[in-house]
């Protein structure tokens, strides 16, 4: 049986190799760890050079001192004692703790206690190996903090984030994405689902991955994604390919941004812009046409007078009267075009919206079929606007007439309501800034045949009509648009073939 070489306890034991001792001493002193021997009374019997260097004192300062004296009584009682006692019972113990070393202050250490049995087998000493892991610990803490910062960002940013494996299956999804796609905030609902499930026709993960292998990161632009209810939502999708150390694709991260509001705004801006362009054209043409009409009308008047004394005056006057009717028609169209392009003269005064609306309802009253019910809350409103009462009447007349027209076959309910809303409300509803503080909101709703999205898009365009040829000039709503715009208000419509149409008008409250 091999004799244990107990080289530390007896420095000058006979019969053992002095060189070996020196050799082992050198190994122990050159270790990067602080190495020490502690006896059952918790006293240091030996410490290595590293231990001394760390404390910047010689070994005499430690040998013979207790653990409590070197590290502090509190630390000894609360942190060290239980671990070293466990070791004296025969266990190898490893733990991490923060200790104060006077030259350096508080640092983190990794400590291993190994039991050192004597020749009899009883554990009389502990070999302590203490390694400075402060830098490692700080790096770890920083990494965790960064991870938390990232998690926070990922959770709270109003952009959806998902991570997919290289097959396109979702392995991570943030709250915004889940909300956007109509799942409750349970990530498990989308885990392991292929992202292709959300893509509508044309887009596939495979195609995107192919691009990403070349570009690394890409903005895929507008993609319609299907939510949990099957509804398509326009989204801006960006992709980023993560590769592992060998450069192979590892995951793909996607950002998914809801574009619905942006698109809505864009469309309304486009519509307003095109109507503006038409308006400029219409205004210019209208002026010239008015001159032409005035010239023709003047000559017709003169001709009518001239022919009064002619023998065929009756048949001629039928014709001149026909010309006059045509001139009147032309005049009406020009007038509407001028109103649409905001070139017409307005007589603006303080007008009660409720009064004007009620007047209009009374005006058309007799022509409303019995199968149409009117509901209005206009009596409770005293809201005033600064407008030409005739023009305002025209707006209401047009909208009410259209509503009745839409319901003439099957009847229905015509609802009319007035309220006052503020700038914040409108900002949330229409996603744009408004100039005045308060607006009068007038809603005219019908339960009639409604309009296709294609029609709704063009409804305010002059001469655009969904009616059959010969039944309407298509100028009515363009005139309404012109008047409302001239009042620095806003009008928009929601309509579908199932429930009918709702027109929303917003006119600044008169100050």
């Amino acid at each position, binding site marked *: 049986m091999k004799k244990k070489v107990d080289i530390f306890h007896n420095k000058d034991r006979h019969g053992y190799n002095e060189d070996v001792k020196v050799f082992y001493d050198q190994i122990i002193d050159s270790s990067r760890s602080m190495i020490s021997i502690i006896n059952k009374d918790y006293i240091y019997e030996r410490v290595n050079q590293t231990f001394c260097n760390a404390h910047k004192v010689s070994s005499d300062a430690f040998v013979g001192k207790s653990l409590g004296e070197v590290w502090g009584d509190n630390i000894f009682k609360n942190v060290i004692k239980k671990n070293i006692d466990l070791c004296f019972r025969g266990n190898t113990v490893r733990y991490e703790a923060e200790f104060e070393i006077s030259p350096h202050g508080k640092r983190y250490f990794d400590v291993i206690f190994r039991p050192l049995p004597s020749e009899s087998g009883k554990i009389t000493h502990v070999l302590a190996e203490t390694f400075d892991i402060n830098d490692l610990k700080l790096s770890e803490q920083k990494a965790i903090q960064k991870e938390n910062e990232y998690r926070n960002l990922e959770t709270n940013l109003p952009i959806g984030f998902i991570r997919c494996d290289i097959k396109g299956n979702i392995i991570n999804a943030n709250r915004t994405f889940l909300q956007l796609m109509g799942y409750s905030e349970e990530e498990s609902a989308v885990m392991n689902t292929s992202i292709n499930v959300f893509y509508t026709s044309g887009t596939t993960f495979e195609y995107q991955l192919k691009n990403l292998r070349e570009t690394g990161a890409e903005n895929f632009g507008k993609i319609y994604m299907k939510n949990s209810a099957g509804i398509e939502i326009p989204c801006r999708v960006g992709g980023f390919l993560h590769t592992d150390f060998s450069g192979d694709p590892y995951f793909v991260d996607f950002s998914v941004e809801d574009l619905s509001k942006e698109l809505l705004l864009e469309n309304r801006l486009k519509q307003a812009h095109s109507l503006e362009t038409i308006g400029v054209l219409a205004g210019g043409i209208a*002026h010239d046409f*008015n001159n032409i009409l005035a*010239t023709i*009308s*003047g000559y017709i008047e003169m001709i009518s007078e001239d022919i009064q004394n002619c023998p065929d005056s009756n048949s001629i006057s039928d014709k001149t009267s026909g010309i006059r009717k045509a001139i009147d028609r032309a*005049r009406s169209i020009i007038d509407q075009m001028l109103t649409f392009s905001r070139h017409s003269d307005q*007589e603006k*005064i303080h007008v009660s919206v409720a009064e004007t609306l009620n007047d209009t309802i009374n005006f058309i009253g007799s022509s409303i079929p019995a199968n149409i019910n009117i509901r209005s809350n206009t009596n409770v409103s005293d809201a005033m606007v600064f407008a*030409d009462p*005739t023009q305002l009447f025209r707006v209401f007349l047009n909208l009410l007439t259209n509503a009745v027209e839409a319901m003439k076959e099957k009847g229905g309910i015509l609802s009319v309501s007035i309220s006052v809303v503020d700038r914040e409300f409108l900002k949330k509803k229409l996603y744009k800034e408004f100039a005045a503080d308060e607006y009068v909101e007038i809603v005219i709703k019908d339960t009639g045949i409604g309009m296709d999205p294609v029609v709704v898009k063009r409804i305010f365009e002059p001469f655009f009509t969904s009616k059959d040829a010969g039944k309407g000039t298509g100028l009515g709503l363009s005139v309404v648009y012109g008047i409302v715009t001239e009042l620095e208000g806003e009008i928009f419509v929601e309509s579908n073939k199932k429930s009918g149409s709702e027109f929303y008008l917003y006119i600044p409250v008169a100050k």
Partner: protein
Amino acid sequence: MNGVLIVEDDNELREMLKTALLRRKFSVFEAINGRDAIIHFKPSVTDVVITDIIMPEEDGLKVILELKELKPSVKVIAISGGGKVGPGSYLNLAKALGADAIFSKPFSINELIQKIEDLSSDI
């Protein structure tokens, strides 16, 4: 014989007005814009001025002021292609600046001539 000055940049319209007035035995003077009107204005033989409000070179509102300065007793009729007539509009502004009557195109010739005759008899 009452003299009428027509200030109108549209050639055909001006020609029509001239024809209508000559038929009723008015003597007619023409100008194609405001500046032209001031240059060719003959106060001694002109009782009534018909002017379009919106014209290139010098707008009709200014013309009203300047002609009235040259002959305070001259009657000015303002005409406009703009649509509705009423206070707060261009035409009402014309009245505020001294126009004696306002017409919007297309107007009745007979009504215009009636107005010219009414205004002339006031002088």
